C-alpha cells in the first residue's frame, strides 16, 4: 500500500521541479544598457537590447545590427520601462545590465529620483557601471553601433574597465558605489563622462561598422563632478587623474616625464602599483590634512640618451615622476577648493573617521569648512625595473 502511494509521489518530483515563472532564453529581451533622459518633466528611458541572431558565434547574421534600442516616456522610470513592452518584441530582462547612461541635461537637474527603482527592484543588480553622456542625451550614446565588441554596452563596459585599470583618467564606478557616494555627507559623487565623436545620426547606421575607421565613436572623457545629485562641471584629464590618485583608484598608469637634460624629449614611467593614504595631520590651530601616495614603477620607454645603469639617474627620474603626479594631485585639490568649492575628494570622510566629535559640528557645513583646509601632498615613486633592456639603443646611435 505504502509503495503504491510513494511511487506517484516520486514521479511528481520530476514534473514539479523547476521554477514557477521560468522564462526560456529565447523569450527574453536581454537589456544590456539603459539610458535615462528627462524631457518636459517626463523621463525618457532608452533600453539597449542584444539582437541574438546578429551576435551568435555560429551563424551570425552580419547584415543586421547587433543591438536594438527602444525608447519610451513615462512619469516614472518603471512606467517608461513597462511602456517599452509596447514596442519591444520580448519582455526586457535586466540582470545583465552592464551600463547606465545618464543624459547631461538630467544630470544637471538632479538624477537621484531616477535611481530608486534600480536599487529597489530585485531584477537589477548593483554592479553595473554608471556614466554621464557629455554634450548629448543618453539615447544618442546608446544608438551608436560599434565594431570589434559589437554589443555596444559590453564595448562601453570593457572600455571603461580597461582605461580605469591601466591609464586611470576614468572612473569605473558601479551603481552600488554611486549610491554610497550620494548618501555620504563627507564626499560628493563624481561620474565618468562618455562622449560621442561625429554625427550621432551617422552612428546608428550599419555603415559605421563597415569601415576600418568608424566616423562615429564613443569615447570616455573626463570626470563629471556632482554636488549632491546635480552636475556642476567637468574635470579635465589632468584633474581627473589627480582625482583618481587621491581616492586611491589608480592601479596602473603612465607618467610621461621629460628627459633629465632634454626638456623636449620624454620617457615613460609605468606605475604598477599605487597606494594612497588620506590623513588628518593636526586639528590645531587649524585642521590640516594630507595626501600621501606611494607608487612602485618601472621604466617603460626611453626617448633619449640617458644612463640608466646609474642609480643617480633613476633617482632623478623618480623625482620627476613624483613632481608630475604631485602636480596632478594639486590640480584636483585646486579644482575642488577654488573652482567647485565643495568636497568631492572624500576628505570629509577622513575627518569623520578621525575626529567624530568635530565632524558632528561641521557635518552640515562641511563644504564651507573644506575650502579653507590646508591639504599637503607627498608622492614617493620607487622605480624597480627597467624592462628587458638596460640602456637604450638610442645611447649607441650617437648624434
Amino acid at each position, binding site marked *: 500500500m505504502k509503495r503504491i502511494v510513494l511511487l506517484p509521489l516520486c514521479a511528481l518530483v520530476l514534473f514539479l521541479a523547476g*521554477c*514557477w*515563472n521560468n522564462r526560456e532564453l529565447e523569450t527574453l529581451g536581454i537589456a544590456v544598457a539603459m539610458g535615462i533622459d528627462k524631457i518636459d518633466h517626463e523621463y525618457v528611458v532608452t533600453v539597449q537590447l542584444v539582437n541574438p541572431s546578429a551576435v551568435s558565434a555560429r551563424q551570425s547574421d552580419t547584415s543586421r545590427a547587433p543591438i536594438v534600442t527602444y525608447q519610451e516616456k513615462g512619469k516614472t522610470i518603471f512606467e517608461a520601462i513597462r511602456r517599452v513592452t509596447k514596442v519591444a518584441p520580448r519582455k526586457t530582462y535586466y*540582470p545583465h545590465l552592464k551600463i547606465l547612461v545618464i543624459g547631461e541635461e538630467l544630470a544637471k537637474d538632479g538624477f537621484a529620483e531616477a535611481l530608486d527603482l534600480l536599487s529597489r527592484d*530585485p*531584477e537589477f*543588480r*548593483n*554592479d553595473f557601471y554608471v556614466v554621464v553622456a557629455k554634450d548629448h542625451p543618453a539615447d544618442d550614446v546608446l544608438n551608436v553601433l560599434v565594431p570589434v565588441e559589437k554589443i555596444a554596452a559590453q564595448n562601453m563596459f570593457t572600455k571603461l574597465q580597461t582605461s580605469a585599470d591601466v591609464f586611470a583618467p576614468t572612473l569605473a564606478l558601479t551603481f*552600488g558605489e554611486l*549610491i*554610497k557616494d550620494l*548618501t*555620504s555627507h563627507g564626499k560628493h559623487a563624481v561620474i565618468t563622462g562618455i562622449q560621442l565623436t561625429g554625427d550621432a545620426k551617422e552612428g546608428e547606421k550599419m555603415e559605421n561598422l563597415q569601415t576600418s575607421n568608424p566616423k562615429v565613436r564613443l569615447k570616455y572623457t573626463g570626470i563629471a563632478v556632482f554636488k549632491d545629485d546635480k552636475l556642476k562641471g567637468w574635470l579635465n584629464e589632468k584633474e581627473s587623474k589627480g582625482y583618481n590618485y587621491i581616492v586611491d583608484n589608480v592601479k596602473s598608469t603612465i607618467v610621461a616625464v621629460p628627459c633629465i637634460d632634454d626638456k623636449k624629449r620624454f620617457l615613460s614611467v609605468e606605475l604598477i602599483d599605487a597606494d594612497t593614504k588620506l590623513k588628518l595631520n593636526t586639528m590645531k590651530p587649524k585642521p590640516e590634512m594630507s595626501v600621501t601616495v606611494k607608487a612602485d614603477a618601472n621604466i617603460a620607454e626611453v626617448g633619449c640618451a640617458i644612463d640608466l645603469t646609474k642609480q643617480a639617474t633613476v633617482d632623478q627620474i623618480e623625482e620627476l615622476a613624483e613632481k608630475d603626479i604631485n602636480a596632478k594631485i594639486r590640480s584636483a585639490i585646486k579644482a575642488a577648493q577654488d573652482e567647485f568649492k565643495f568636497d568631492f575628494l572624500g576628505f570629509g*570622510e577622513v575627518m*569623520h*573617521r*578621525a575626529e*567624530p566629535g568635530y565632524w558632528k559640528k561641521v557635518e552640515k557645513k562641511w563644504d564651507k569648512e573644506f575650502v579653507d583646509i590646508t591639504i599637503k601632498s607627498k608622492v614617493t615613486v620607487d622605480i624597480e625595473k627597467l624592462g628587458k633592456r638596460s640602456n637604450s639603443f638610442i645611447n649607441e646611435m650617437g648624434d
Partner: protein
Amino acid sequence: MLEKGKISVRQFTILVALYTIGTAILIIPSILAAKAKQDAWISGLLGLAIGVAMVIFYWKLSERFQYVNLIEILEKCFGKWIGKSVGFLFFVCYVLLLATFVLRDIGDFMTTVMMVETPIEAIHIIFLIIVLYGVKLGLEVFTRTMELFIPWIVLLLVALFLTLLPQIEVTNILPVFENGMKPIVQSSFSFLVFPFLEMVVFLMIIPYVNRPQDTKKAFMLGTIMGGGLLIFISVLTILVVGPTETARSIYPTYDLTKTINIREFFQRVEALMALIWFITVFVKLLVLTYVSCLGIAQVFELKEYRIIVLPIGLVLYVLSLSIFPSISFLIEFTPVYDLYAFLWCAVFPFVVWLVSLVRGGERNKSGTARTESG
C-alpha cells in the same frame, strides 16, 4: 514521555547553533546596523554576552527541575491546571507565533528577491511539507540530518568569506563609538530578543539529551557559535556594503552574496549561497514546529504528539499568510513584538524561577498544590 528518542550532547550543540543562525542570518545585519551603524559589532558582542547569560539561566531553570520538560516544570510550579493553561498559552501564543514568523520570513524572502512571480503559498506549502515530515520522524532523526548539513554550511561560509575578502574596506567600520553607547545598547536589545531569547524553546529539548547534566556547556557553545557567526556576517556585510546601505537593505546578507565577483568569472552565486539560510531556516522552523507539537500534545496528555502534526501545520500555513499585511507593517510592528517576546522569554521564565524559589523548588509533588502566579 512523548518523545522516546535521545540525542547526544554534540547533536544538541549543532541543533542550538543552527537554530540560532536560523532566519536571523537573513536580516540581522540590517537590524544591528539600523541604530548602531558601523558599531554593529559592539552591539553584536554585547547582545551575545547577555544572550549567553540568558541561556545559562534557562539551563539553570531546567537543572532546578531535574531536566523535565517545560510543561512538567510549569505543572510542578503552578499545579496541574494553572501550569497546563500557562503552558498552553506559551506554546500557542509564542512558539507557534514564532514559527509562523519564520515561515513567513522565508516566504517573503523568496518572493521579494529570488522568485518574484511565484505565489508565496507555493513556497510555504513546499517548505512546510518537508518540515512536517521531519517533525513526524522525530527528534532523533532530524538532528542526525542536521549533522549532515554542517559540512555544507561550513564550506559555503568559508567560500563566502574568501570570495569577499578583496572587497573589504576597513574604513567602513570607522569611526568606532561615534554616537556613544545609546544606539549600541538599543541595537543589542533587538539582537538579544532575536535570536537569543528564542532559545527558551530548548527547555523542551534538554530532557531528551542523553546526558542532560552535560548540556550546559553544549548550550553555551552552540549559542556562541551561532551568535558569533551572525556577528561575523554582520561585520562582513558592513565591511563590504557599508553601514548605511546595510541598514537600508531588507535582506542585506543576500545583497552581500550578490557582490561576489572574482574576475567576472566567479559571480552570480547568490542562489548557491542561499543554501546556507535555506538549511538554517529549515532547522529553526523544524525545531519550533516540533516543540509546538510536543508541548501542545503534552498539555492535553495525548499518547502521541504525531497526530497533531498535520493540524498544527495547517494552522501554521493559514496564520503565516494572514499574520501581517505588508512588510511595512512588520517593520513598524517589530519593536512591539520585541517587547512581547521579552515578556514570554525573559519575564515568564523569571516568574517561574521566583515561584519555584518561594515554593522550595521541585521537591513539591505536582497536582494538588496551588499557588497564584505573580
